[in-house]
Structures are given as C-alpha cells and as structure tokens.
C-alpha cells in the first residue's frame, strides 16, 4: 500500500525538482552554514515573493497556450506611475499605491487582452509589441527620472519593513517574516482556487490543451483569455509596489529585462508552452530554485556574469525534457502536432 502511494508521488515531475532543490541546498549549506538559518529563509522569501507573483501570472498565461513577455513593463509602469502620483498629490497611503498600480496593470493587461482575445493575434508578437509600447510610453511620456529613498513617500518604506511576526537574535536585534509572504500566499491561494474550482479555471486548461475542443465545448474563449491577461496585469501591479518598497528606490528602467528569469522559473516548474500542463506548486518550486541559484552564484565561485548563461541553460534543459516527453507521448498516441 505504501509502495503504491510512493510510486504515485514520483509520477509528478514536481518531486524531482523538489529533490534537486534539497540536494542543492545541502551543498550550499555545507559551504555556507548560515544558509540554513531561519533568518536567511525569511530573507529569501521576501526577496523572491515578487518574482513568485509574476511567475504565477506567466504560468497562467502559459497554461492557456499563450505567452506574455510584457508583464515586466506593466509592473514597472504600475510602480513608477503610482509612486509619481503619490508624490505629486502628497497622499501617503500604501493602499492608494496598490490601487493605482493594480489599475494601471489591469488597464495595460486589457490592452493585451484586446489584441489577443478579440483580434486573435499571435500572443508572442503582440506582447513583444506591447512590451516595447508600454515601456517606451512610460519613459517617453511619464518620465525617466529615478526616485531615490529620500524622495520616496514613507508609506512605501514602512510597508517594506512590515513583518508578520518578529524574532530576536542573541544580540538583541530583531528580524521577521515579511508581509510579502502573506501577499504571496494570498495570490497563490486565490489563483489556485480559480484554477481548480471554477469553470474559468477549467476553461484555461481547456484552451491550452486543445483550443478547438474548448471552442466546441462551449467555453467562452474570448472572455477567458481577456480575463487572464487582465489578471496578469493585476499581479504585475502588485509586484510593482512590492518591488519599490523592497528597494526603496524606483528607476523606470528596472524590472524590464528580467523576463527571462521569470520564464525560466516557470518552465523549470514543469509548465508546458503547448499549454494545459503545469501546476502552481511546480511554479513555486521553480521560483525557489532560481532564487537560491541567483543568490548563491557567488558562493559557487561564479560571478554575476554567469547569470544569463545559467538562465538560458535552465530554460533549454527544462523545456527539452518536457518537450521531448510530450513528443514521445505524441508519437505513441499518433497525434501529430
């Protein structure tokens, strides 16, 4: 009985990624013992929460068989616009910041949705276009001036430091688990509920699995696609505010350029671009692995120059494994794709 259960767990690809993370963490902990402290864990959660949220958004798009590379531009646009509005209006409220950033996010996401779901244009090219359009418009029309810590409204700095609970070290100083963990958990649960328990979620998997079948099953393709691109925009807006509060600095040239890292995390987690396959757990594991890798590259003796190389390598290896499995399955079942 126990054997059958263990076998079932090993069927899911996420377990392999989990084991890789364990092995990797062990190696790092042996080089740097402070890796396995609670403090380091909290720090890891705080700094990777933003990427995790973006990854979940990208994952949902990937599930539907599409791709969206404009999420970074949406995140920085939401961040920069909300910061500027707060500064200009003098209002110092973090909720307003979230409201503005998420509204901008949903609006920009809706533009993506317009071209993809209503005009039915190819997703990669549309989002490549909107990436350039959004970022170019932000820099050209809103501004290029960075906002440094001194000029940043206090609500961001306070929010960045907020902790869920606090622990004290031996020397009296304290550290805590950031609220970022709560936001990440919230997004994870909300997304998971949508995917697993709503018709909308079923529809996302259906469109990704076989679009034609989804159409004939009566799913509202246009509505579902429009929703998910707006949802990604919404998540990007959340991430934008988290990012500015983490760095206590806002430069409109940031975030854009990190698309590859997020994509690597998602495909590492087992999501397939052909759509319909993948899990939020896998995505989170992928984000964890990439975060640990990024932070500890130096420990392994590799400078930050190696970052792009590893991200590219991870994408290629992960996608090769899942694509080859797909191909084998396709050949066996005589489906020609």
């Amino acid at each position, binding site marked *: 009985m126990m054997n059958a259960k263990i076998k079932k767990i090993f069927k899911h690809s996420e377990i392999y990624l989990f084991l890789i993370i364990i092995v990797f963490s062990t190696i790092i902990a042996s080089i740097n013992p402070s890796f396995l402290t609670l403090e380091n864990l909290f720090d890891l959660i705080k700094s990777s929460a933003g990427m995790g949220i973006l990854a979940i958004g990208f994952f949902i798009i990937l599930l539907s068989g599409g791709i969206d590379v404009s999420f970074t531009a949406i995140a920085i646009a939401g961040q920069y616009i909300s910061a500027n509005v707060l500064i200009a209006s003098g209002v110092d409220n973090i909720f307003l910041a979230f409201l503005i950033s998420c509204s901008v996010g949903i609006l920009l996401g809706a533009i993506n949705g317009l071209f993809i779901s209503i005009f039915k244009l*190819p997703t990669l*090219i549309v989002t490549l*276009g909107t990436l350039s359009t959004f970022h170019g418009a932000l820099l050209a029309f809103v501004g290029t001036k960075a906002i440094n810590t001194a000029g940043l409204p206090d609500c961001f700095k306070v929010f960045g430091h907020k902790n869920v609970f606090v622990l004290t070290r031996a020397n009296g100083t304290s550290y805590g688990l950031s609220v970022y963990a709560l936001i990440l958990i919230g997004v994870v649960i909300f997304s998971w509920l949508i995917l697993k328990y709503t018709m909308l979620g079923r529809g996302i998997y259906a469109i990704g699995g076989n679009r034609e079948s989804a159409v004939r099953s009566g799913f509202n393709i246009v509505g579902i696609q429009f929703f998910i691109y707006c949802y990604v925009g919404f998540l990007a807006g959340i991430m934008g505010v988290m990012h500015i509060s983490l760095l206590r600095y806002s430069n409109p040239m940031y975030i854009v350029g990190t698309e590859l890292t997020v994509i690597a995390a998602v495909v590492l987690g087992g999501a397939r671009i052909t759509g319909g396959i993948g899990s939020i757990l896998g995505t989170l594991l992928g984000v964890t692995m990439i975060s640990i890798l990024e932070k500890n590259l130096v420990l392994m003796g590799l400078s930050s120059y190696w970052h*792009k*190389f590893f991200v590219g390598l991870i994408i290629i290896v992960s996608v*090769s494994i899942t*694509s080859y499995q797909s*191909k084998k399955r396709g050949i066996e079942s005589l489906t020609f794709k």
Partner: protein
Amino acid sequence: MKTIITFIIMVGVFAIMAIFLPGKFLTVINFQSIASQVPEFGLLALAMMLAMMTGGIDLSVVSTANLTGVAGAIVLTKFINPQMGEGQIILIIILAILAIIASSLICGLMNGFLIAYVGVPPILATLGTMGLFLGIAIVITGGHGVTGFPDEFLFIGSGKIGIVPVPLIIFIICTLIVALVLNKTSLGLSIQLLGSNPVAASFAGINNNSVLVKTYLMTGLLAGISSIIMISRVNSMRPGYGYAYLLTAILVIVLGGVNPSGGFGTVSGVVMGVIILQLLQSGFNILAFSPFFKKFIWGFMLLLVMVINLIIAGYQQRKGKLKTRA
C-alpha cells in the same frame, strides 16, 4: 497583393519625408547613413524571416550575432602583434571570419536540433538560446567590449567599392541568394510548405526535421554575416549590442508581408520593410525623437501593422480571394 501594399507604403513614407523635411532628408549624407545601417539590420531581418516562414521564430539572432562577433573579435585581437606582415594579417582576418561563420553555424545547428529533434517549440528554444549565447558572450568578455581591429578588417565595414559601400554589396548578395533559395530550390519550397501546414508537409514526404535544421543553420549563418559587418563597422564588439534590433526585425518582416504563422512571405517584401524602417528611423533622427519615444513607436507600429493585416485578410476572405488555410 501584400507586396504591392508594402511598395506603396515605402514610396509614401519616402514622399512624406521628402515633402516635410526636405532640407535634411534629401541629402547625400543622409542616404549614405541609411545605406550603412540597412545591411547589418537587413541581414538579421532576413534571418528572422526564414525562421518565420517555417512557422517558427528565432529570438536568438541578435545573441548569435553577439556571440559570433565576440569569437571573431577575440581572434582578431589575440593573435595579432604589431610586427606582423601584411600577408599574415590577412590570414588572421580570414581566420576570424571563418571563426564567426563556424560559430554561427554551431548556434544555428543548436537551434535546429532543439526545435526539430527534441521537439521544443521555437519560441522557447530560441528564448533559451538567446540567453545562453548572450551569457557565453558575457562570460568570455567579462561584460567589456573588445576593440582594436586591424585596418584591413575595417574595410569590410567602412570601405567602398566604387561608390557602393562594401556592407551594402554583401547585403545585396545575401538577399539574392536567399531569394534564390526560397523561390527556385526544393528547400525553399519545402520551407513554405512546412510553414503552411507541417502535418501535410510531413505526409507529402518532406523531411520536416531536415528542413528545419537547414533553416536554422541559414538563420545562424545570416546572423554571423551580420555580425561581421557590425563589428567591422564600429571597430568593437560589446555583448548586449543590437537588442533593439529584435523588435524592429519582427516589425519589418510583418510590414513586409510575412505571415507570422508561417508559409507566406517574400524577400522583396522584407527588403522593402527594412527600407521603410530606415527611412522612418532617419526621419525620427532628424526630428530628434528620444530613443524612448522611438521604442514606443516601433511597438505601436508592430501592433498597428498586425491589426491592418487582419483587416485586409478579413476583407479578402469576404471577397473570396483569400487562400484559406485549415
């Protein structure tokens, strides 16, 4: 039909530029500057076009150009010392060019292998190789640029044969070869069939895998040739150069009438698209648009062109003229 529209657009853009900005636009210097930028960009566009004709995409063309440029730059700088004679320098230059070509073919082969034999979708495969190739280039150079090439090499980028710049000659030759391959060889026909309907092509007896690998080999090669022109024009190679070309390459291809889903497209359309873009680029420079505003415009134009193509396709379908695809 689409080629005619592109031609009209090209003439129209030229006319508008000439009418509104006569002073600075209609000068010899301006056209020389346009002529010098068309080749390196145009080769990347041709490379991307070949990938798109098969229904895929190659996001790694700029990274390939970067990496192969680094390879060539290293050969040019590491193996040359001041005491060398003319003949030896030429030898090193030939070696460098061979290095670039070889590495570009390796890059293309990797793409082709991943896409054809492993079955990775082109978007993700080239996304991964984009990062990988650029990453290797960054690691090799430590992020810095490599400069200081021999004058004989620089002739490729800045020299002239008669009044025609050398890069333009290279570009014209490559354009003719690509057009020849696409229209007059069986490989070219296979590419179009494959892009149009991969399953049907496979059942028709076309070796899809072989065609795909050859396509991406050509893509890599064109990117390599582009990097030869690039590094000889600016006398240096810095990883990260040319990334703006990626979006604009897709823009000119779509402008030139290539169908992103594959199967349809003409070389003349793409060349005209390149020319249109360079005309606009020069106009924007004269008007002193900021690089950010240009980024906005290119993105906006890509979306606009896609929508217009859609409207045209819908119109043609209603009129019964569109060759419908399953």
